[in-house]
């Protein structure tokens, strides 16, 4: 123990010496040498040479050479290299040492973590698993582990709800299998499920994205991630694995003797890098274009026209009013002088006209440079009995939106105790504190500044002026009001700075997750493991709303003195597992690996919410200050599932493997007759290269896989009975109102079932330098449990029932190649993934010709639909009528005719997605770049649809239409009469090309009914991640007792390299409105995405 203590002291002194940058010099004998591969004699770059019993070590250079100073000849060198057997060499009198390392056969077998946390050799699996190492996700220091998977997983589509701090990211594996909102894979950390709920991304109440709960997992602490994509891989996790499983294994203390310290620190800067394409030619106003002037008022000068037509000034003498919130006003930058909201006042208090000029960067000016610092410290210890890893992380983030922030503290302990050869236990505990003083608000809400910026914010508005005055309260039309660029519209158009600083949403979450397990070896190869895991958090959310706020949202209509909304949430999930595993050879050629287990799972959530109508003392935010009775609600949800499962993996001669599983679930959410359901899977893996003895220099590994599996699924709690619901949160003159449930329950619900067939192959060439993994899958989900729309005349809005079946077929391809491996140490590695999913609604409930998955945009009837025989997620809305030739039909007013019925105007599913990662390394340098891309996948963009109506987008001035007017391309509709000859009589012009000139305003203001004009193709190519790392030479750092020092520069979301031409609004196609079904395919005033640039220092000793 004393020696351990001394070691600790020594380590501490090294920490100190590093931090103080003072060098400890060790003297004495120098030994040089070279490390090579025993088989081919090639030099090994980066092999570690350590002096046993010390922390002194060096790393070989590109020639495999090293030089190390030893204290005396009794020193022993430990030479190690990943994938090779470690060698121990007594120096003695040698001064030059040649070491040839042999390939470690055991390490060549790639090990992956599979269901239930069981490590399996990848070659023995009959299904596709994709795994990533910790550094693959932590390379560019992400704050959300889900968004860090972008472009790295074949067959997984990652969608981020916004580009702002704390945003939720969702992951969807192998297409949409369900009409329900829960399509997220299951997240499992060290064998225990953790919650990854997404809440309130765009809810009517809060309009705040509180992120996805898996973002609490610290990416710096991840050892590896395995993605189980198909039903085969996930049969053992039951219902919730129907959408795949993301298995995360955290770093452990094992593997290295003694004590280790790892420290990293980073700083990163964010800046907004994608904003809509605003026009900068015309300012705010009603109808002031040059076309309008020239057509109707050419006898006036433009200034006279403007003064006479454009502005209606308040009669109260305040001189502050611009009574039109759209951007159909007068031309900017042509010398007009206009009294504006920030004009200086004359002696009578009237504004003095100032130049009417464009402010092209007025939206960009609102955003600030974000800054993130992250620090992580990990201590590992590994002794005879116990080993452990303690991690501490701290991050502090300031968002690009003014006054938004996030701090996070992570603490984790991963420990293992081996009490005897037979008995061991593991304890793994994580604590996370997540705090936001203010989160960005989003969606179709006045609290989202983009609603203003993208629709109603004049292009002449100077943002600095708004900042300077946002706290000013003035008297306007006899009413006290917050000063603004537009004083009309009493309850609308808040100053963005007012919302940023005054109407804030804070959140504080304390979370614990982890598990404890005991493993007992009953006999050789037979182990019994018991594990109890839990994940729970408490979260407090608080929204404050100041007096004088402009917001017409229902909840705050009466809040003249301000308002307060608070919510306390408790969410929890507990899992208990009992697992028996048997690993034994049944004779010379046959091996068996079997498991038998049971699981108990309970999920319990509760939400307590308080809100009021108004406050008594203005802007004092306490529940004691509510004016009148506050609204209080308390709701809770509980669900229990019991399961048993068994699996067997039979191996024949190490090249043929058969995997069989069976699981039975008992779910509390289903009726008694069907609450128990069973589902099996079978997979076969055949390594034909081993079977037929193929092992050439060109082709050295080939495996074929085939599998069939089913996964059952249940539903949410409390769906089986009809209830009375309390209507709203308040009473009606003191009477609490109750109404019956609008959803008709079905009493014979059956479990949902996904059946899937999967084929695949894995091929490696040129001694593993080139490899492919290709998978084809075909999965059908039937008996979907969902709330089906039924005609309201039935008395109900919906019917909870089993309906419909969806089929997803697709191909996933992963490839890697070591393009260059040069003797001088220059290496180039490429990783590619690509996937394509075809989705088909096979059938719906009989009598059902269509199913509305969600409303994308209620007001204008744009919906997300499912039609039998078509793909999931058709965007459906009224649009421009066309004749059989596809020509747009034009009415007598020169504008398109609207269709009588909604039409399909797009599909939300991408055609294909993928990513390409490149790593270049030379000596200590390593350069990594990831590009990801998506082809297709339509989006209905509110920014585009409303921004066009409001005249704020570039598309509304394109082609000089505000100077000349425009002629919409199309032909006249039936019955349209025009006087073509100018003889005063009209003739039928139907079918002739449209020649009627309309003003840009007339066309675009009426364009919102044509939903197709709001649709953009979501194709993109993005430069997702770049990092440049430099690992300091071992010869340098070993002198100060360090093992590894790496400095890296990194960037995330660096550039949007390509977007489709229909995306003329220039939205980020990747950003959708939240993680729920209703958010897919809808862009709703997206918060602008940020580009991140950072620097990181990583030290190990």
């Amino acid at each position, binding site marked *: 123990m004393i020696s351990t203590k001394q070691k600790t002291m020594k380590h501490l002194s090294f920490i100190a010496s590093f931090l103080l940058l003072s060098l400890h010099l060790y003297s004495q004998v120098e030994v040089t040498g070279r490390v090579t591969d025993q088989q081919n004699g090639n030099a090994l770059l980066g092999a570690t040479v350590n002096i046993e019993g010390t922390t002194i070590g060096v790393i070989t250079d590109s020639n495999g050479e090293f030089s190390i100073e030893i204290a005396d000849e009794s020193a022993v060198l430990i030479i190690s290299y990943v994938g090779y057997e470690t060698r121990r060499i007594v120096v003695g009198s040698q001064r030059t040492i040649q070491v040839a390392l042999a390939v470690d056969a055991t390490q060549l077998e790639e090990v992956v973590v599979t269901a239930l946390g069981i490590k399996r050799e990848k070659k023995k699996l009959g299904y596709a698993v994709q795994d990533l190492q910790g550094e693959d996700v932590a390379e560019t220091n992400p704050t959300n582990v889900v968004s860090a998977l972008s472009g790295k997983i074949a067959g997984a589509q990652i969608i981020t709800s916004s580009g702002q701090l704390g945003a939720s990211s969702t992951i969807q594996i192998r297409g949409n299998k369900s009409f329900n909102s829960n399509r997220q894979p299951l997240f499992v950390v060290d064998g225990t499920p953790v919650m990854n709920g997404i809440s309130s991304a765009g809810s009517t109440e809060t309009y705040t994205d509180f992120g996805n709960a898996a973002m609490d997992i610290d990416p710096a602490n991840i050892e590896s991630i395995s993605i189980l994509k198909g039903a085969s891989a996930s049969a053992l996790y039951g219902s919730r694995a129907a959408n795949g499983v993301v298995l995360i294994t955290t770093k452990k203390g094992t593997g290295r003797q003694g004590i280790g310290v790892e420290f990293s620190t980073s700083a990163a800067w964010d800046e907004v890098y994608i904003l809509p394409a605003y026009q900068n030619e015309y300012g705010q106003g009603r109808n002031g274009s040059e076309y309008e002037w020239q057509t109707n008022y050419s006898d006036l000068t433009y200034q006279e026209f403007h003064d006479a037509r454009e502005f209606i000034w308040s009669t109260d003498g305040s001189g502050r009013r611009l009574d039109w919130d759209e951007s159909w006003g007068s031309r900017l930058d042509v010398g007009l002088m206009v009294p504006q909201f920030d004009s200086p006042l004359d002696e009578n208090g009237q504004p003095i006209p100032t130049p009417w000029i464009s402010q092209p960067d007025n939206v960009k000016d609102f955003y600030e440079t974000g800054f993130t610092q992250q620090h992580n410290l990990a201590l590992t210890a590994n002794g005879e009995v116990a080993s452990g890893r303690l991690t501490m992380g701290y991050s502090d983030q300031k968002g690009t939106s003014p006054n938004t922030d996030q701090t996070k503290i992570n603490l984790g302990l991963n420990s293992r105790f081996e009490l005897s050869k037979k008995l061991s236990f593991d304890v793994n505990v994580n604590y996370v504190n997540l705090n936001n003083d203010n989160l960005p608000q989003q969606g179709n809400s006045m609290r989202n500044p983009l609603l203003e910026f993208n629709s109603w914010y004049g292009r002449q508005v100077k943002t600095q002026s708004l900042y300077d005055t946002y706290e000013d309260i003035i008297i306007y039309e006899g009413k006290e009001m917050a000063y603004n660029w537009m004083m009309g519209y009493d309850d609308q158009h808040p100053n963005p700075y007012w919302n940023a600083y005054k109407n804030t949403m804070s959140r504080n979450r304390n979370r614990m997750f982890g598990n404890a397990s005991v493993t007992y070896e009953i006999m050789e190869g037979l182990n019994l493991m018991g594990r109890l895991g839990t994940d729970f958090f408490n979260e407090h959310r608080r929204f404050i709303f100041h007096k004088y706020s402009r917001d017409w949202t229902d909840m705050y209509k009466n809040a003249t003195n301000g308002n307060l909304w608070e919510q306390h949430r408790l969410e929890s999930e507990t899992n208990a597992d009992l697992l028996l595993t048997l690993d034994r050879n049944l004779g010379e050629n046959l091996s068996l690996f079997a498991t038998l287990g049971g699981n108990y799972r309970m999920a319990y959530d509760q939400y307590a919410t308080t809100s009021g109508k108004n406050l008594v003392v203005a802007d004092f935010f306490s529940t004691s200050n509510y004016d009148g009775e506050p609204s209080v609600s308390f709701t809770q949800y509980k669900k229990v599932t019991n399961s048993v499962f068994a699996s067997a993996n039979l191996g024949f001669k190490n090249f043929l493997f058969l995997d069989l599983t069976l699981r039975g679930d008992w779910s509390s959410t289903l009726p008694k007759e069907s609450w128990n359901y069973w589902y099996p899977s079978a997979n076969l893996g055949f390594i034909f290269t081993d079977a037929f003895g193929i092992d050439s220099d060109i082709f050295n590994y080939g495996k074929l896989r085939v599998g069939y599996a089913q996964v059952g699924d249940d539903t949410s709690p409390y769906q089986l009975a*009809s209830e009375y619901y309390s209507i709203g949160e308040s009473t009606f003159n003191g009477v609490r109102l109750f109404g019956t449930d609008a959803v008709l329950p079905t009493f014979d619900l059956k479990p949902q079932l996904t059946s899937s067939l999967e084929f695949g192959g894995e091929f490696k060439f040129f001694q593993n330098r080139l490899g492919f993994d290709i998978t084809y899958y075909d999965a059908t989900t039937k008996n979907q449990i969902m709330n089906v*729309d039924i005609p309201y*005349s039935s008395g109900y809005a919906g019917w909870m029932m089993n309906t419909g079946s969806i089929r997803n077929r697709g191909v996933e391809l992963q490839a890697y190649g070591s393009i260059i491996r040069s003797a001088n140490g220059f290496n180039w590695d490429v990783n590619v993934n690509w996937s394509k999913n075809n989705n088909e609604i096979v059938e719906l409930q009989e009598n059902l010709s269509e199913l509305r998955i969600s409303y994308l945009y209620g007001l204008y009837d744009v919906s997300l639909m499912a039609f039998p025989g078509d793909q999931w997620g058709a965007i459906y809305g009224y649009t421009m009528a066309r004749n059989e030739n596809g020509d747009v039909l034009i009415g007598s007013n020169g504008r398109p005719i609207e269709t009588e019925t909604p039409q399909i105007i797009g599909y939300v599913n991408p055609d294909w997605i993928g990513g390409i990662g490149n790593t270049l390394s030379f000596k200590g340098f390593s350069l990594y770049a990831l590009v990801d891309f998506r082809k297709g996948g339509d989006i209905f963009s509110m920014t585009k649809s409303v921004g066009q109506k409001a005249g704020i987008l570039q598309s509304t001035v394109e082609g000089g239409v505000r100077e000349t007017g425009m002629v919409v391309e199309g032909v006249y509709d039936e019955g349209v009469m025009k006087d073509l000859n100018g003889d005063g009589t009209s003739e039928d012009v139907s079918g002739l090309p449209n020649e009627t000139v309309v003003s840009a305003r007339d066309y675009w203001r009426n364009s919102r*009914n044509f939903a197709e004009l709001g649709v953009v193709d979501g194709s993109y190519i993005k430069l997702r991640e770049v990092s440049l790392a430099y690992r300091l030479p071992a010869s340098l750092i070993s002198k100060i007792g360090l093992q590894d020092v790496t400095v890296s520069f990194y960037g995330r979301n660096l550039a949007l390299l390509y977007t489709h031409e229909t995306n003329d609004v220039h939205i980020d196609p990747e950003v959708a409105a939240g993680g729920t079904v209703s958010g897919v395919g809808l862009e709703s005033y997206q918060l602008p995405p940020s580009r991140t640039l950072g620097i990181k220092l990583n030290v190990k000793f």
Partner: protein
Amino acid sequence: MKILIAVMTGLLVLVSSCTENFEEINTNPNAPDQAPMTNVLGYVIASLGYRFGETEMIYPGSFAGHITKANYTDAVVYSGKPSSSIWTGCYSTVSRNANAIIEEAIGKENVNMQAAAMVLKAYAMQMVTDVYGPCPYFEAGKGEEGLIHPVFDTEEAIYADLFDQLELASGLFTEDPLGGLLGDGDQLYGGDIARWKKFSNTLQLRMAIRISNVNPQLATEVLSRILGDPSAYPVFEGNEDNAALVFPGDEEWMEPWTSAFRSIGDNRIAKPLVDSLLARNDPRIAFYADTTAQGIYDGLEVGEEGLSKSKPGPLFIDNPGGPVKFITYSELQFIRAEAAARGLVTLDAQQAYEEGIRASMQEYGIGDAEITAYLQEPNVAWNNEVEQVNLQKWLSLFHQSWEAWAEMRRTDIPRLGPAANSEKPGHNRPPFRFSYPETEISLNSANIPANVDEEDTYWGYQIWWDTRTGVQ
């Protein structure tokens, strides 16, 4: 193997025995499966009074030439489809909950509760058929019996049954304590059964006058039966009997016009109403409308833009705790006046006409002197013309737009054209109806009547009682 078998058996026994409290776990702790009838009655009344949102103000309000939109004019120029909230609300909120009350009230022998729910349901279903024409009625609201796709019934058949239902309800109402109480949920009459009975009878009169052109026989029968026997058929006797719901005025239950105005605030008083009031020196203008910045009453042409025009009066757009009228005493008087003037019943038409005007003015606290003066105005003074009655009825039905629009379609008074800047050219009157909601068309397509031209969104069918000719 023994261990395997033991563990497996143990697990199976364990998990399958752990299901015994599943039903308890899956019982919703957040919502009861029973609720007092009075609290459900309160919901039916409140939601019917709220008229399921701002639909009333925008659609029938502008069709009737009462109120329009000055900035976002899409809806008033018939762009797109009409809101479906009246359909969805009347079926899935009013009817479903009224059915639940009726069923329970019969079981508990609370005849007053049963009758009140029947009256409210009849009120809602008359609104639906007046707005849409043929609609599901006899098979409607029976989802729990497996009737997911109810057939559509004709207005004629629906009206016939609505008379029966109201007749039945009127007969059920009893002031005998054994008849049961309505409780706090009765936000219309505070549990006063006598006034509920008047409401029910007065509603029959509204229906009778509506069908008086298309089925004069039945109309006359109902009018004479009810107006001829006040003791058996009590009707409203003054404004105190008005069926009006006063809103609490909080953010959740705010008077619907005020609530709607607070969201966008571009609603303006319409030109036809303002001009008619000005032409008669009508003192109600001071309540219906606000003056412009120039200090005048200036109505906005429906379909035009113009935020500087007169706003509706603060009584209607800045009155969160204001009332919504279901049916009033003044309407009863106009029904009586019309019936008399047309010779359907024998009574004093002039007296009813003047009482109708008086009652309407008294709702705003206008004094007798002003009322008397108004009654002398040249185009107000009784001239023995039915048209006068209908015009005064239209003036009095401000803020009861569904009724105002229905009566305008029946009488063609006032005679208005479609909105300026109409998106649907080729018409000479405001809309005849709403087209069926998209959900009904797609989910109950087999039952959509063939004689309704759904493509002509607002005009494709004249409601049964709309006997106007030459209109399109």
